[in-house]
Structures are given as C-alpha cells and as structure tokens.
C-alpha cells in the first residue's frame, strides 16, 4: 500500500515542436455560482472573478477565466489544488454554488510566436485580431473538431485548454499547419 505512482499528462507522448508547447500539470477548478457569490469567491480565491464576458483575470500564479455568466475556470499551481478548493468551499459557504475539480480533464497547449494568430486561424473560427480578441480575452470555442478554451495571454501568445482526449488531435492539426507554413 502507498506505493507512489507517477502522474503523466495527455501530451507527454508527443514530440514538441517549435512554438507549440504542452504546459505542465496545473490545478483547474470549475466554479459555478450566482452573481451574489462572486465577491465571496473572489476573495476566497484571491483573484477578482471577471464579470465581463470572455475575460480572464490573473493574480500571481492564479487565474480566473470567465466561461459563462455563472461559470469560471480557475487555474492555480498544481500543488495548491486542495487548499484552493478548501478556501473556496469555505468562502462560499453561504452561497449555493458548485465547485468541481477538473485538473486532469484538460491540458494546455501554448502557441507562442509572431504567427500564432495565423496558425490558430486554420481551425479557430473567431477573429483573432488584437482589436477583436485582445490580450486577456478568453472563451470557449472550437478548434477544427475539438472544443477548446482559448485565452490570449499576450499579443503573440495563446493558451489553449483542451480536453485531454482531444489534445493529440489539436496538436497534430497545429503541427501540420506549422509545417505547411514553413513549406510555403
């Protein structure tokens, strides 16, 4: 009993390519709460939960992504999963809510580089122009046939959250797009 087992991510088996990177393990929590609980959740989590649609807030190593009017994806360092969850449950004690751990449900791919938006455009139907999709914007959307959460972290840096079983597909499409771009 108590033998220790290793954690491995959905993308561990894939080779890395330039400008595509699989991000390491992270804590992910899906929080559902009505507007009355937002303030309490914000202070419990230490990040102001954005109430403006499709925006992400960051504080330190944590981030809160608006996914819906009563739905946030909370990101935190992997090691903090338990204490973050506990703090939120405490802080939200008076408010009906749902907090569900999804750390392993999805994984993240970071697309970084001058042509990041152009690369994403091969599968993402949204306008990724900086004016239409500014830094700090995040949303659920589709990448080709994979549902994703897309978050612009910098002018040329996007983070994609994707359910783990779709990750190889996403990766292959992006990788193919990269290679095509180089061949042209």
């Amino acid at each position, binding site marked *: 009993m108590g033998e220790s087992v290793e954690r491995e991510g959905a993308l561990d088996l894939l080779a890395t390519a330039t400008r595509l990177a699989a991000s390491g393990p992270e804590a992910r929590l899906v929080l559902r709460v009505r507007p009355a609980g937002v303030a309490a959740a914000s202070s419990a989590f230490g990040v102001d939960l954005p109430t403006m649609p*499709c925006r992400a807030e960051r504080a330190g190593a944590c981030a809160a992504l608006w996914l819906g009017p009563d739905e946030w994806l909370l990101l935190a360092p992997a090691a903090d999963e338990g204490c973050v969850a506990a703090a939120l449950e405490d802080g939200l004690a008076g408010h009906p809510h749902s907090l569900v751990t999804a750390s392993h449900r999805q994984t993240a791919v970071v697309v970084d580089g001058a042509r990041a938006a152009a690369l994403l455009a091969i599968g993402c139907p949204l306008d990724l122009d900086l004016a239409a999709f500014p830094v700090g914007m995040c949303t659920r*959307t589709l990448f080709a046939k994979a549902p994703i959460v897309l978050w612009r972290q910098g002018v040329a840096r996007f983070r994609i959250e994707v359910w783990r079983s779709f990750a190889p597909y996403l990766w292959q499409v992006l990788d193919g797009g990269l290679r095509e771009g180089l061949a042209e």
Partner: protein
Amino acid sequence: MLLIPCPWCGLRPEIEFSYGGEANIARPADPAALTDEEWGAFLYLRTNPKGRHAERWRHANGCGRFFNAVRDTVSDFFETTTKPGELPPSGGKS
C-alpha cells in the same frame, strides 16, 4: 455559416451554437393533467413558420447559455436575441 448574436458573447459563428428549436414551448407544469392530444401537441406540433421565428439557441461552445432569438427563416437574418427572462419582442414566454 451564420453569425449569431449571443447576448453575452456578441456575434459568434454558428458552429459554436446548437439549435434548440421553436421557443416559447414551456413544459406543462402538470403534464399528468393534459389529455393525450394536448401532450402530443406539446411534444410534436411546431409552428415552423416561413418568416419570423422565435427560437432557442445555445451557445454550446461558448458561454454555454440558452437564449431566445427571432430570426427570419427566409433570409436567415436575426432580428433580436434575448437572454432568458428578458421579454422577447414577440411577447411570448421565454
């Protein structure tokens, strides 16, 4: 691919949405009180109009919310979209 105004997220491409059929068909509060005829109508009868259509969409690959819209089924242009609870211009229940 239509461009659909989500009341929360703004104009977004159709493939992010799932269609929810005719709007304003509320599930009866007490189905047991309905005759077979009435229940059958609730389940299956649809207006299916040519022209203005009050309908439901869900921004399934976006904010995940259902909302109501009025669309012209001939031109496919949207007239309005409303959050649930907001009174749609057609005046019906949302």
